[in-house]
């Protein structure tokens, strides 16, 4: 209770109350621009938060995250292009509603569903995270290694194309995390006699390169004469959501929120998967499933409530276990570390007041989402008209300034482009980047605890299987890899036979 009140005290400072609406508007704008995502918005804004107080910085980034997840619905609805992967399921009914002249109604329902689910997800985080953190205080090095292995096993979930590519990505990420000085022995690793590499590769630098630069390079094929999609402003009418429609959408929102929270709390999943599952379930349970896909407002309510409900829940494994729930929370984890907050159970013990301020801040962010969206929705439509060629210049300027400002070093600028070019070619070879990111984030945790555990057990590997929690995590990790591999093979066989 003391921490709760201390958190409230930190939260209601003028800096945070100003940062929240600014972060939301920025997040909605970034999410609404095709070619940018909330992940990219967070990455680009992390360097801007270096001089902020940790609580202000993290709450700002959370506002960008939440705003971006809703903002992606704007392009999904208006131009049939999801702004983020979390909004993919909103396409099915969002764009057909625009074609029927009901774009404003679709945007309003997306906002309402996102707000309700987001608030509930934030409360779930607030009440579920502390008890989980208390349990994790019992963890020793063996449990932390098993946890890191479990976190890496979620690669199986995100390697939707090929599990081998996901595992290769994880190995690449772990290798990159070992470059520099070894924390335990002080040995220098893979620096090739370059003193700049002794401090290793900064996580933020890797993020900017892997995601931002590679995304710009992926658009090298973009041709404005062919690929540009333009919205007709007349499509945004003043058609409002009726009381009857709000009533019809109660069940889809409730179901979507529940699915979003459960899926979000499971590492390796995220809002995109939650959105699809919620949409499918709502359609199956509906009395009129034939209307889905043709402009059914319940479809929008289902997918948007799930993806925003997942926003708060994905923070649970990140804050309590130090294992990111999805790509966005992996990026947020980097932001936490930049500000001296190391996610995990010790954070609750040592800086509980700051953590409570952040969790309460997420509740306030979701409440403010309603107002930010309500007043500015008709203006957001014009954001989608910003040409990508202009965005590319702006994003690159931000990336290089942000990278340089991390350590005032040109080498960081070199690294972001090296990572970006490598990531571009990896994406062309159908590799996912999230496994690499997971390897970079979890590699140090895995290595340190692996070596500590073996020091405690005098070199015996049995420590990892004789401790019950460690064994449980390892078994779940193994099972998830097997299940996803079998599922992936079955889907590939089904695709081949249907051709």
């Amino acid at each position, binding site marked *: 209770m003391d921490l709760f009140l201390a958190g409230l005290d930190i939260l209601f400072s003028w800096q945070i109350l100003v940062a929240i609406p600014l972060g939301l508007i920025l997040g909605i704008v970034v999410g609404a621009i095709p070619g940018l995502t909330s992940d990219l918005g967070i990455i680009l804004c992390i360097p*801007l938060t270096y001089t902020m107080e940790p609580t202000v910085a993290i709450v700002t980034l959370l506002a960008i995250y939440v705003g971006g997840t809703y903002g992606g619905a704007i392009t999904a609805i208006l131009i049939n292009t999801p702004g983020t992967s979390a909004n993919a399921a909103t396409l099915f009914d969002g764009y057909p509603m625009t074609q029927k002249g009901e774009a404003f109604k679709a945007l309003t329902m997306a906002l309402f569903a996102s707000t309700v689910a987001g608030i509930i997800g934030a409360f779930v985080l607030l009440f579920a995270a502390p008890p989980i953190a208390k349990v994790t205080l019992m963890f020793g090095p063996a449990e932390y290694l098993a946890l890191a292995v479990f976190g890496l096993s979620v690669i199986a979930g995100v390697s939707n194309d090929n599990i081998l590519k996901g595992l290769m990505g994880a190995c690449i990420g772990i290798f990159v995390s070992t470059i520099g000085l070894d924390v335990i022995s002080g040995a220098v690793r893979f620096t090739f006699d370059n003193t700049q590499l002794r401090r290793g590769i900064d996580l933020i630098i890797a993020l900017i390169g892997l995601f931002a630069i590679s995304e710009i390079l992926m658009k090298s094929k973009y041709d404005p004469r062919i690929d540009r999609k333009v919205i007709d402003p007349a499509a945004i009418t003043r058609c409002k959501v009726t009381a009857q429609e709000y009533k019809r959408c109660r069940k889809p929102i409730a179901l979507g929120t529940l699915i979003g929270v459960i899926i979000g709390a499971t590492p390796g999943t995220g809002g995109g998967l939650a959105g699809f599952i919620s949409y499918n379930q709502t359609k199956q349970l509906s009395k009129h499933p034939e209307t889905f896909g043709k402009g059914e407002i319940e479809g929008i309510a289902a997918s948007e409530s799930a993806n925003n409900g997942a926003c708060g829940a994905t923070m649970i494994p990140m804050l309590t276990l130090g294992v990111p729930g999805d790509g966005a929370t992996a990026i947020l984890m980097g932001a936490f570390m930049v500000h001296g907050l190391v996610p995990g159970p010790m954070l609750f013990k040592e800086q509980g007041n700051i953590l409570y301020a952040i969790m309460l801040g997420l509740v306030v962010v979701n409440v403010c989402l309603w107002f930010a969206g309500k007043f500015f929705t008709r203006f957001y439509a014009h954001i989608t008209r910003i040409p990508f*060629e*202009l965005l590319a210049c702006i994003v690159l*300027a931000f990336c290089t300034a942000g990278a340089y*400002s991390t350590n005032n070093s040109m080498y960081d600028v070199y690294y972001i482009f090296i990572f970006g070019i490598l990531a571009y070619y990896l994406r062309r070879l159908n590799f996912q980047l999230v496994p690499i990111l997971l390897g970079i984030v979890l590699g140090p945790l895995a290595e340190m605890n*692996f070596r500590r555990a073996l020091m405690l057990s005098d070199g015996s590997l049995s420590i990892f299987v004789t401790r019950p929690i460690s064994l449980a995590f390892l078994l779940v990790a193994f099972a998830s890899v097997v299940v996803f591999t079998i599922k992936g093979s079955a889907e590939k066989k089904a695709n081949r036979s249907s051709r």
Partner: protein
Amino acid sequence: MKITYNSEIVAGFLFTVIAVVLFLLVPSQIHTLETTEINAQTVPRIALGGLGIFSFLLFLQGVFLLPKKTLVFNEALYATRDFRDAIRSTVYIAIMIVYVVLFSLLGFIAANVYLIFTVLLYYRSTKKSHYIVAFSVSAIVYLVFTVGLNISLP
């Protein structure tokens, strides 16, 4: 000349070679005074060993189990959209490399002037408004970092 390939063969082969080379470099790149079996070299060896094994398996998967594409090197290839896209992406990467060099030699402002002109021309943009907005935003970014955040840029 004709080659058959898929992304698994290419990625598998490349990363097998990279993993083997880096694995062989471990003793020369990691000098540790630890005498235990588990030391500073262990996790890099595990990561590189894993990369080598998985990439070799990927290579085998690509060769024996997955469908392949055929690439025929003739004049018709050079007229395809894929070839043009490959050239365009190479040019784009070259633009970025020059940008980084200019950033280190001439500083943020000069490098961004180059970047804006080349990228907008790359996308065949001739609208003056694009150039004005891009220059303005670059100036704002410079001011935000140098004046607002007190971080000096080159």
